[in-house]
């Protein structure tokens, strides 16, 4: 039971639903300092990602051999790299890659995990046993190891990266949703729907899923930073986004050899990752507290 709680990040479904019905959630999120910080950081990040070309002073890919390896200055706040590219502009554009890839991967994870968890919880029995066994099996392989193997076997690049991380990350969603579905299935409106001969698919989509969705949203918000870290890690290892694309992990990897002399190249994208991760974690935490005030997070 405890394992279950840790894996599902301590989300309490029934309490969460009650809170949604109060629909004071947005107000409660910004009530705490952490929530305010989360909203501010993630809001800024999203704006930066959307308006990256406007925010960035330079072309993130354009090389300039007259201004290579320059330390931070007014012209180049984060300095330049060995090709004379403006690191600040690269980090700004990196927001797009981080959020874009992170969210796309998350969407695939949710589609896969929610579908399997929903089917497992709804049908129970052998179907459930088979799906949950698959989850157990997948959980026995460390995430990065499996992701590396999948992305590597597929030859590296963006599409393999998405496939690999989606294949690794759906497990948590499946577990969470399956538990929630089983609890929703105990409610009598499910039986009422069965008594009205409502089709299985419609029961799942109209009755079960909406009542299990609150915890999915919280869990997704808390998973996004983890996915962003994984994307950066795989790119750093050369199994994800490749240079000259301004992806944070790839920028760090490219500046790695110059750390002693041009420290700024690798330092700033790392800070950008930290800020992003802190922002989404704070938002997720505040969301959970707002949705279910009684449940405090073991972090």
């Amino acid at each position, binding site marked *: 039971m405890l*394992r279950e709680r840790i894996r599902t990040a301590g989300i309490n479904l029934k309490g969460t639903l009650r809170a949604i019905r109060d629909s004071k959630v947005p107000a409660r999120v910004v009530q705490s300092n952490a929530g305010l910080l989360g909203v501010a950081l993630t809001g800024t990040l999203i704006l930066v990602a959307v308006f990256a070309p406007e925010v960035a002073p330079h072309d993130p890919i354009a090389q300039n051999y007259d201004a290579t390896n320059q330390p931070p200055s007014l012209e180049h706040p984060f300095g330049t790299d060995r090709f004379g590219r403006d690191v600040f502009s690269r980090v700004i554009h990196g927001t797009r890659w981080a959020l874009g890839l992170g969210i796309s991967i998350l969407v695939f994870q949710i589609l896969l995990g929610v579908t399997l968890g929903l089917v497992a919880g709804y049908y129970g029995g052998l179907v459930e046993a088979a799906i949950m066994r698959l989850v157990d099996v997948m959980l*026995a392989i460390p995430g990065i*190891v499996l992701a590396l193997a999948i992305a*590597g*076997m597929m030859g590296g690049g963006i599409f393999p990266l998405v496939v690999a991380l989606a294949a690794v990350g759906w497990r948590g969603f499946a577990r969470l949703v399956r538990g929630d579905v089983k609890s929703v299935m105990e409610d009598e409106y499910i039986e009422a729907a069965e008594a009205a001969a409502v089709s299985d698919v419609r029961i799942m989509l109209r009755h079960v899923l909406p009542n299990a969705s609150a915890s999915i949203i919280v869990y997704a918000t808390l998973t996004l930073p983890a996915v962003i*870290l994984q994307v950066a*890690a795989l790119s750093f290892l050369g199994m994800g986004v490749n240079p000259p694309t301004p992806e944070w992990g790839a920028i760090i990897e490219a500046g790695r050899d110059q750390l002693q002399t041009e420290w700024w190249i690798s330092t700033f994208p790392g800070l950008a990752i930290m800020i992003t991760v802190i922002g989404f974690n704070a938002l997720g935490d505040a969301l959970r507290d707002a949705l279910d005030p009684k449940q405090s997070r073991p*972090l």
Partner: protein
Amino acid sequence: MIPVLFGVTVIISSLIYLAPGDPARAALGNQADAEAIQEVRADLGVDDPIYVRYVDWLTDVLQGDMGTSIVTGEPVSAMIAERLPATLELSIVAMLITFIIALPLGVAAAVRQYSWLDTGSMIFAIFWLSMPSFWLGLILIFLFAVQWQIFPISGRADSFLTLEWLSYLALPAFAIGARRAGLLTRLMRSSMLEIINEDYIRTAKGKGIGSQAVVYTHAMKNAMIPVVTLVGLQVPLIISGSVIIEIVFAWPGLGRLLVDSVLRRDYPVVQAIVLVYSCLVLVANLAVDVSYTYLDPRITYD
């Protein structure tokens, strides 16, 4: 555990179907002659039906034969045997560091709830958790190896259990352990809090110092149950962390071999390493289950 392991082997052996085009050619490169490619194809069993391939591979693995590297021709088991100790050493020390940081800090934060220590441990946790481990590794190298030259930049000592050994191990193990300690500190704190607030502890608190000590020992033991659970969940995370950190610190472990083999398309090696990692996770899970029975006599596996 056995059925799970069995499932893992199915997934591992199907990894090769993800490879685009001819896996043999991908591994050997375009210049390779047709004969060599044919040989590797036969070795990989590419042309056999799925189940034949799987059964062949599994029988070999069960007999301890993990095949040979496509790239170097070395037996895979020898390659793994050479690298495994380095990874185990790194992971175990990283785990120790996690505990050395997290247990006292978590307990202290719980006992002095809302003090500067509590807030500090919270900030500490968030800080480490949000840092990409490879980046942390680079920063550590930059500060402790390049600037202050306290520790060597990278690599692994030839000696064992010496000061030199420790100096090479310190940075990579800390880079993995500190990150995990962030989470463990918070968990230790909340699980300790839960127990401290139970009635019998409150009563003892009122009675004075002597009984307090006894009770806190007892509370610690109870608080360990969720911690042990977390340790079980940490093992795959520590392993995941070690893969990246091995690259950053040029640590000659399994993780580096994995990344190298993935980049070289050395399929037999990749498959074998994934299998070994999964076995480590499963063994750790088993150990966790066993330690439950020690910590909480009520839990039995009948």
